């Protein structure tokens, strides 16, 4: 019941939004998302870390087609839902200073998006998962289309079609699995697992790619990433935050829950390929990031690199890697929201996101600078920031997988430092110029966004224990499924 | 005997049908079509479908063809106004016609040895039998035909009743409209 409320409260809030005035809409959206966060925190406290799926809802939905409204929360889900519900208020808050035209629609879309995201993470039914997966695409598309920047028409369309292409291929894969579920076909996750396990290795390989198509595009994994820098660049900042902070986690989450346990054999067959691609992606994206001129693009490429590492870690099928991926997802979400907000502040004050036009901001905005540094350190994975825990565990796993991949993956530490420090230096340090001279320091609203982010970055870096603890059992459970399968076929 | 009659009627029917197609003058086409219809009617007689023969003659020769002829006269169509396709098209049309014949024959043959079982009744083409069928088994379609004719009538009346002057006025205004519309419909590159 709580799960239902958790999923649909944002939707209810969205409906309420439309009877409000624009200025009320803002506040209502914030209040609603805070309530959602409170709810999620309550559930976190009620959560029993030693068990898997809890707060389960399982109602028939389209019974004749074996579709149920089956949702629940286990450790992995909980972490991601936490991420979603914590970031959404921050994202909403971050938009307060921008007076978006037609605010009710804007916040409605954001809340709608939150619903879809929470739904994706909670769904335990293949069809439900797919529905939420697709539903998450619509609001973000409209957010980018209506409130985006230059050239947003073609860019967002490309984004939409590209991701939808992946999703539809996934749908075909899910259907294939559905028709291999035993008995009266069902989309239940357990049934789909069973179906996946019953397939021949060759079929599993195909299904692997079918499902992975969606996830690879969403994450995005090299070379399916070209929609991303453009989209991040053109989207309004809250949209970019949603995309980078939460939405790309959908892809990773998909791999964890809807790919690896479904077709273990396919993963075994193709995992190394994907892992290699991910590692290539890390290096490739990092290289591209080095010479970017535009801040948002730079962060976009850095995001590809980070996600590449997460993906690589997951495909090692190593618990350390999985756990690392979980922490890193949270960390990346928080850090990137922080980074994009910082860019937003810069853009709002200087009307440019070209790094070359900036410089010396630190002189007039020390608090802003401090926040930037800490978030940046989280991004380059300095120990005691959130980025380190995940990145270390991931590199650990990838290195254990193979030392060459590990070594290449570890390059992210160096290259990350190179491009992040470069951007920091160009924008913040040096003498200020005409545009940055009047740069005012953080005001109250901005502090309300950045300080929580900074706190979280440090807090998770120092005490990652609770996070790791929450997801431990769920990750174990998933890996057990894989191992049982491998044991079953005599590996 | 019947076979010869069949051959004769068939030959005439096909020949006049071809003439319908190939006559240059629309009026001739109509007349040839009438001949074809009569031949078909002859076949109905051979097949003992007297009721249909009657209907056929009345409807086709009596109504439809007259209507055609009337329209042709009304529009004053003759050999000179007759639009002609280019030879290439004509050639292509003939070729595809032949091909269609070929494939249809190809598709329909193979049932050559088919001997049909005689029905319960042998002579079914009479007014009595067909009338019975029309008012029992096929009552609904029969009524629907009335609906259809009503619809056609309403439609034809509606179309035909349009005052001529209104049409002509519209014609002028639409010419200019046509230009703007076409511009928009054409690719804008």
């Amino acid at each position: 019941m709580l799960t239902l409320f958790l999923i649909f409260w944002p939707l209810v809030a969205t409906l309420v939004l439309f009877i409000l005035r624009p200025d009320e809409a803002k506040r209502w959206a914030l209040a609603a998302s805070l309530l959602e966060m409170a709810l999620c925190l309550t559930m976190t406290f009620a959560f029993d870390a030693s068990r898997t799926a809890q707060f389960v809802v399982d109602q028939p939905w389209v019974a004749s087609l074996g579709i149920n409204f089956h949702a629940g929360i286990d450790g992995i889900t909980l972490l991601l839902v936490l991420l979603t519900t914590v970031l959404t208020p921050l994202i909403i808050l971050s938009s307060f200073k921008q007076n978006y035209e037609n605010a009710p629609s804007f916040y409605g879309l954001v809340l709608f998006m939150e619903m879809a995201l929470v739904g994706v993470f909670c769904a335990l039914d293949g069809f439900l998962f797919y529905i939420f997966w697709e539903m998450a695409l619509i609001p973000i598309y409209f957010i980018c289309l209506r409130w985006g920047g230059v050239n947003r028409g073609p860019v967002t369309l490309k984004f939409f079609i590209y991701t939808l292409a992946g999703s539809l291929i996934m749908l075909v894969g899910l259907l294939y699995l559905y028709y291999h579920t035993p008995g009266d076909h069902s989309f239940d996750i357990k049934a789909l697992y069973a179906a996946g396990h019953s397939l021949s290795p060759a079929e599993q390989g195909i299904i692997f790619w079918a499902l992975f198509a969606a996830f690879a595009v969403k994450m995005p994994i090299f070379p399916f990433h070209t929609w991303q820098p453009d989209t991040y660049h053109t989207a309004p900042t809250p949209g970019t935050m949603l995309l980078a902070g939460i939405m790309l986690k959908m892809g990773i989450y998909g791999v964890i829950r809807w790919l690896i346990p479904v077709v273990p054999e396919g993963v075994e067959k193709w995992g190394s390929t994907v892992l290699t691609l991910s590692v290539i992606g890390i290096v490739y994206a990092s290289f591209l990031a080095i010479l970017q001129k535009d801040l948002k693009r730079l962060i976009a490429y850095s995001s590809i690199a980070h996600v590449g590492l997460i993906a690589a870690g997951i495909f090692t099928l190593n618990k350390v890697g999985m756990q690392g991926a979980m922490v890193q997802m949270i960390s990346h979400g928080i850090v990137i929201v922080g980074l994009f907000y910082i860019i937003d502040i810069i853009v709002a004050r200087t009307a440019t996101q070209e790094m070359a036009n900036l410089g010396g901001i630190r002189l007039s905005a020390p608090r802003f600078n401090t926040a930037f540094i800490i978030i940046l350190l989280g991004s380059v994975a300095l120990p005691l920031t959130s980025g380190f825990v995940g990145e270390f565990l991931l590199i650990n796993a990838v290195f254990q997988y193979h030392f060459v991949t590990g070594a290449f993956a570890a390059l992210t530490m160096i290259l990350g430092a190179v491009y992040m420090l470069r951007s920091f230096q160009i924008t913040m340090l040096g003498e200020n110029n005409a545009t940055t001279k009047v740069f005012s320091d953080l005001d109250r609203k901005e502090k309300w966004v950045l300080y929580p982010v900074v706190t979280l970055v440090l807090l998770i870096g120092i005490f990652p224990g609770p996070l790791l603890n929450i997801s431990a059992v769920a990750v174990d459970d998933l890996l057990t499924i894989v191992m049982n399968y491998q044991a079953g076929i005599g590996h | 005997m019947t076979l010869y009659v069949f051959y004769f009627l068939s030959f005439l029917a096909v020949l006049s049908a071809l003439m319908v197609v190939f006559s240059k003058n629309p009026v001739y086409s109509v007349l040839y079509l009438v001949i074809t219809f009569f031949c078909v009617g002859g076949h109905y007689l051979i097949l003992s479908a007297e009721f249909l023969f009657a209907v056929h003659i009345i409807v086709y020769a009596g109504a439809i063809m007259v209507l055609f002829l009337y329209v042709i006269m009304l529009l004053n169509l003759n050999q000179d106004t007759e639009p002609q396709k280019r030879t290439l098209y004509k050639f292509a049309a003939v070729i595809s016609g032949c091909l269609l014949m070929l494939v249809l024959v190809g598709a329909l043959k193979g049932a050559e040895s088919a001997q049909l079982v005689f029905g319960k009744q042998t002579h079914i083409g009479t007014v009595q039998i067909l009338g019975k069928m029309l008012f029992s088994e096929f009552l609904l379609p029969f009524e629907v035909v009335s609906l259809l004719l009503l619809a056609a009538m309403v439609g034809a009346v509606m179309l035909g009743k349009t005052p001529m002057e209104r049409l002509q006025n519209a014609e002028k205004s639409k010419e200019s409209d046509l230009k703007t519309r076409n511009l928009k419909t054409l690719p804008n590159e």
Partner: protein
Amino acid sequence: MNSVFVLSGLGIFSLLAEIFNAKRFLFPVVVLGLVASALLLMADWNQGTAHYSNMLTFDNYAVAFSMTLSLIAALWFLMSKDYFADHAHTTDHFSLVLFAVIGAMFMVSYTNLAMLFLGIEVLSISLYVLAGSSFGDIFSNEASFKYFLMGSFATGFLLFGIALIYGVTASFDLHVIAAHISAGTGDKTTWLYAGILLLIVGLGFKISAVPFHFWAPDVYEGAPTVITAFMSTIVKIAAFAGFYRLFSICFATVSGEWTDVVQVLAILTLLVSNITAVYQHSVKRMLAYSSVSHAGYLLISLLALNTISASAILYYAVAYALATITAFTVLHNIEADDENAVIDSFNGLVKRNPYLAFCMAIAMLSLAGIPPLAGFFAKYYMFTVAFKSGYIALVVLAVVTSLIGIYYYFRIIIAMYLKSTEKTGAIRVPLRHSVIFAITLLLIVIFGVFPELLVGLV
């Protein structure tokens, strides 16, 4: 069955209304009559009664589709009231439309080929006239003419096919035919197959399957917008339902002989229509191609021909019709502002009437198949059907083409939400259109979220 009488009565009433000077009541009476006929149909639910020596059978399939048609027709009337007001022959139009609806109902409920044929003809003849009902408009004339010429040409093939089937089975009754065919047709099999092929040609024309679709874009574009709406909803649904009814009842046992043909048609339809739609400027024409493309998706279910095909078609038809009616209603309003609605006419609509833009967006999203709207589940259901019968490759193709579909549906969305326009002034939407939007949008969402309401009905 009673609903047919009600509708016929309405048709006649329309004709008489002029005489009795009851034109004022005509509109509400017709709308209520259509709703009433839908309600009457409920009585036939689960009865499966055959009427008039098995001419019509109101089984659940027929009832469901007839109801859909009546209700869509009611919506259509709501949408196009002003169309009637514009014409001198209001009552004639009313009756023609009603006759067309009756024809459509025959097409979904027939169990005799005679009824199929007559249904098609009643529908077609009314539409030939309606398509040309803008007498002074040369485009309307052309549309009407093309539709008529090609329609009657296709009818020839359809009849030839029927004749051959009759030759094989000596009956027009679907069940007799089916019994004959499943009993084996001996050396007349070639006639049967040729007949089936010709039927596919004839009916393929009616549902505008590629390569028999050429008429559709031209006619849809040329006909008055409301008539286009009628054609792309009611006619489409009826034609397809009729098509499916014939083939599922009669020819299911020899499906191996014709599925490959249908498959080719489906593939061609999906590809050609979607690709061609991409580069259109006229919204009506784009919607025409879209309508053709949906025929392609529908063909998939015919191809699969399994236990859930019928229900998939019903769902698809409903979802498609709701979205299309919405889209055309919006288009109708846009045309009030800019007579030749090209995609650019939608520019900046969100500024001029956000509500209208929202409706159009939902309609486009539903047509594009985006969850949680009905259009998504419709496509999904279609894929399920195809998968069930193993047409995986076709599903993949359908997926690809629906992606292409996104491209052109989203052009309108982009135009509305992104592009700017010099035109100012809000576009006023009449109340009855608001009612339509309220109903259709609600249904689109409800059916999308609770597909169980329709799934498995038939």
